[in-house]
């Protein structure tokens, strides 16, 4: 009976009570009690946690902003570099397209040899229609050589120095080009104007000229090679008591945006001025 002494009995009772409490807790009987006691603790914990995270963000954010700014600056630098490369590539692409077009014109007209030139300036006076190109006598350009693009006739060399030349456009007021209307087989003169428009003159009244007729150089006069495309007839005008009819022409070359040209260097212009009888 010594086994059932006071100390052993206390231990047994304690185990039974703890087991009972565990059984009751696991069975869910103590849930309201737990909720009541834990909820304030959780609230306090979450309040503290939120404040701690806020404080940590406040203390660590400036470092992140600095890093982000550095990254942003680096990325902006890369974007700028890429944009610069893109612009360079686009410029090269544009130049290549012009070169391909000029090369294509050269292939389709193999009877002539060409000097490719870039337009570097324009005449200062608004009364005159001239361009300045970056090829001169050093490159084989001579006075009177015809100038074309892949589209058609541009003009002829009017003055030349070692490294540059001045080209009189067919739109200039003093420019006269002998042309041929392809469909009708009529020969006439193409003249420029102050505004840069070109028109046909000296068309006989008995000839029929239709809008859309193709205008080509005739080669008469010896200033330009024959059969170079000039433009198309837009409209015709007949005046009473006039000896000839006139027509407006849409040039095939866009003279406002011309950037590269071909100088025909194996065409020898003929000066027939001494052969023209003086009145």
């Amino acid at each position: 009976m010594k086994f059932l002494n006071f100390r052993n009995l206390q231990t047994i009772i304690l185990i039974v009570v703890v087991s009972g409490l565990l059984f009751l807790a696991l069975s869910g009987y103590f849930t309201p009690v737990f909720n009541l006691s834990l909820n304030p603790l959780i609230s306090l914990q979450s309040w503290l946690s939120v404040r701690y995270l806020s404080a940590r963000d406040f203390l660590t954010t400036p470092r992140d902003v600095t890093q982000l700014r550095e990254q942003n600056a680096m990325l902006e630098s890369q974007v700028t570099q890429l944009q610069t490369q893109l612009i360079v590539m686009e410029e090269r692409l544009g130049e290549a397209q012009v070169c391909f077009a000029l090369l294509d014109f050269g292939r389709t007209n193999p009877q002539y040899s060409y000097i490719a030139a870039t337009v570097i300036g324009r005449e200062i006076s608004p009364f005159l229609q001239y361009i300045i190109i970056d090829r001169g006598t050093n490159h084989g350009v001579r006075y009177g050589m015809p100038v074309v693009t892949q589209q058609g006739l541009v003009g002829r060399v009017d003055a030349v120095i070692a490294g540059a030349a001045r080209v009189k456009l067919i739109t200039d007021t003093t420019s006269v080009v002998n042309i041929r209307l392809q469909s009708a087989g009529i020969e006439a003169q193409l003249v420029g104007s102050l505004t840069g428009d070109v028109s046909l003159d000296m068309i006989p009244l008995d000839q029929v000229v239709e809008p859309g007729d193709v205008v080509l150089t005739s080669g008469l006069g010896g200033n330009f090679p024959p059969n170079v495309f000039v433009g198309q007839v837009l409209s015709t005008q007949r005046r009473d008591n006039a000896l000839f009819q006139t027509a407006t022409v849409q040039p095939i070359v866009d003279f406002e945006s011309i950037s590269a040209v071909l100088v025909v260097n194996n065409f020898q212009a003929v000066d027939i001025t001494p052969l023209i009888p003086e009145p």
Partner: protein
Amino acid sequence: MISHLVCALSLVVFFILQTTIFSQARLVAGSADLILLFLVAWSLQEQVKNSWLWTIVAGLLISILSAMPFYAPLIGYVGVVAISKSLQRRVWRTPLFAMLIVVLLGTFFQQALYVIVLLISGAPISWSQSLDSVILPSVLLNLIFALPIYAVANDLAGRISPLEVET
């Protein structure tokens, strides 16, 4: 010496701008003449003494480079600067007003001279078409660009030889 250098460099810059950009920026068929505007603005600066010299130099160079016959640009620029100098003495207290007046009169004078020269050389142009398509648009463009060019010339002249301020 530095005044000559600045004027020469400015003329080179304005010549390049004129031939590459402003000759292509057209209103109808007219265009602004930056070189004329700079010469006028330069000649209106009180402290500038070399305007005649550079007008002649610029006029000669433009005459050589331009297709305009008979050295017409030289005569035109000298005439415009002569108008500028004569007006400078009369309206010297309001140089900005003088600039606009000189640009107006000078552009008319220069363009009329060009028409006369072209007519003499046989170009088939008419006065009415020249006035409508070239002269009036050019006058308008020159008046628009007159103030910025005057500001540039005034700033350059002021930096080269600042006026003495009376105390």
